[in-house]
């Protein structure tokens, strides 16, 4: 079973990204093969140079703040899918990556184009596009 998702929201800015990762977690745990086409702001998710930080407002250091990093979510969900017998083929829109200077990305993700989205969609049982507007 393959399902494909498309997302364009950047991390930390919209509840849509939370929902997207909740959906991904369910599908990954079921061992589905999952295609993800991340474009526009969503290409930030697997950016490797994300770093955790403390928060002076919370009076916490880096360890205590335990700030969530989207790249870890991507990495962990890929591992969850693999353990369950599935996979996540995460494709970042290459133009969107270049515009934003977002390299390197989490190992196992790849850059691509809308043609990859089309190919994933054609190979999938179903597709969900989570539009920003």
């Amino acid at each position, binding site marked *: *079973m393959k399902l494909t998702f498309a997302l364009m929201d950047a991390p930390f800015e919209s509840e849509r990204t939370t*929902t997207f990762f909740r*959906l991904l977690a369910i599908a990954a745990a*079921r061992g*589905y093969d999952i295609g993800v086409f991340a474009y526009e702001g969503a290409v930030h998710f697997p950016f490797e140079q994300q770093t955790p930080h403390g928060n002076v407002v919370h009076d916490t250091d880096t360890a205590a703040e335990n700030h969530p990093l989207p790249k870890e979510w991507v990495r962990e969900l890929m591992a969850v899918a693999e353990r369950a017998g599935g996979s996540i083929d995460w494709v970042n829109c290459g133009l969107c990556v270049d515009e934003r200077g977002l390299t390197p990305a989490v190992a196992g993700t790849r850059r691509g184009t809308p043609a990859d989205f089309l190919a994933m969609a054609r190979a999938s049982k*179903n597709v969900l*596009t989570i539009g920003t507007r």
Partner: protein
Amino acid sequence: MSDYLLIASRDPFTSPSTREVYELASALSERGHRVTLFLIENGVLAARGSADYGALREIAAAGVRVLADEFALRQRAIPAHALLTGVEAAGLELVIDALAAGAKTIWH
């Protein structure tokens, strides 16, 4: 007859286009399709029994299955017993179930 899952993530009070999703759900149901309207994120705000908003009641009465994401309800402190008659709480798994079953799924 087809199965449709319409996902409404915005509340109709601040996003008027949500009304169009409701209308689409009703129109599809009237044409004999099996339609589920799944309220998620701020979309669940319209499902409060205390909200002075009749559109969801009308949709449910027209045969559309109206469900609200349990997680979004908890985040907004809306208990299941406070939902409009005809609206039930449900888990997000139903979206993956619908996709896996081949339902035509639209996000708004």
